[in-house]
């Protein structure tokens, strides 16, 4: 009779299978970011115009982490009735999704605080299908303007 006498190790092995996917990337920036106020460090609304390859289920906007402050984690209604989820560092993502679908061209309304430094900062936008696959991606630039000194002498 064979019985378990002593167990030295118990180690689970899990195998994954993966699928590969060709992700369409915009040859030029398919996203434009227009803050209602581009001054550094102010709360404002960014109008993010994103033209994708086809209808999407969700969009993500990955902002830079150099100038843009870490987002407060929250869940809000944003563009129309669409929902937006904010994730702070280390990702600094805003995920927008709709009850049905997001059209090929959408102007998202994103409330956030502008970056704390002036300059141009790069981000990455992605569009996802309902099966969670990325269908399109594009880089984008956000421009923040420093304060203008009013009183100066030379």
């Amino acid at each position, binding site marked *: 009779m064979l019985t378990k006498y002593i167990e030295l190790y118990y180690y689970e092995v899990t195998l994954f299978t993966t699928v590969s996917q060709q992700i369409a990337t915009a040859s030029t920036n398919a996203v434009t970011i227009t803050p209602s106020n581009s001054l*550094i*460090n102010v709360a404002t609304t960014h109008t993010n115009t994103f033209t994708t390859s086809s209808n999407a289920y969700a969009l993500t906007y990955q902002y830079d982490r*150099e100038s843009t402050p870490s987002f407060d984690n929250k869940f809000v209604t944003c563009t129309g009735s669409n929902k937006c989820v904010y994730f702070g560092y280390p990702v600094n993502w805003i995920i927008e999704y709709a009850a049905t679908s997001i059209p090929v061209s959408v102007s998202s309304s994103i409330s956030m605080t502008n970056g*704390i*430094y*002036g*300059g141009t900062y790069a981000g990455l936008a992605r569009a996802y299908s309902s099966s969670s696959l990325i269908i399109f991606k594009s880089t984008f630039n956000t421009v923040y303007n*420093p*304060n*203008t*000194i*009013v*009183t*100066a*002498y*030379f």
Partner: protein
Amino acid sequence: MGSNTLYKGADVYYSIYFDAIAPTQANSMIRFTFGSGVTLSSQPYCSSSIGLYVAEHGLRCVNEVSNTVLKIYNLAALSAGSRYTFTVRLKSDLTTGSTIRPTVTIRTYYSYNVDYSVIDQKVNHLLAATENNYQTIPNDFSI
């Protein structure tokens, strides 16, 4: 604080001041970029009564780019609304024109450790008065 008469290559002391809009961290930085006919003197110079980050190191200023950008660092935190005054030494570089009116672009940086962290700026601020360029207007003399 210019002399109203400039000779090519001659050092002249200038005063610059500005009121900060946004505060900075301790160990902040300022850049002055000069244009329209003046460059830093061959021995860059700056002085100020501004607070220092590490007092023992003194006020640090270096010629950063082609004798046109003066980087000033080892600064204590700048306060919003406070006035900061500097004296710098420049020289005329003009070879043509009878008058000269140099410009300065002032930029303050949130932190010395983040080189691009500009938060306040004033671009191409003109010298208060137009000065004569004696490179092209020689003095008369009597015999």
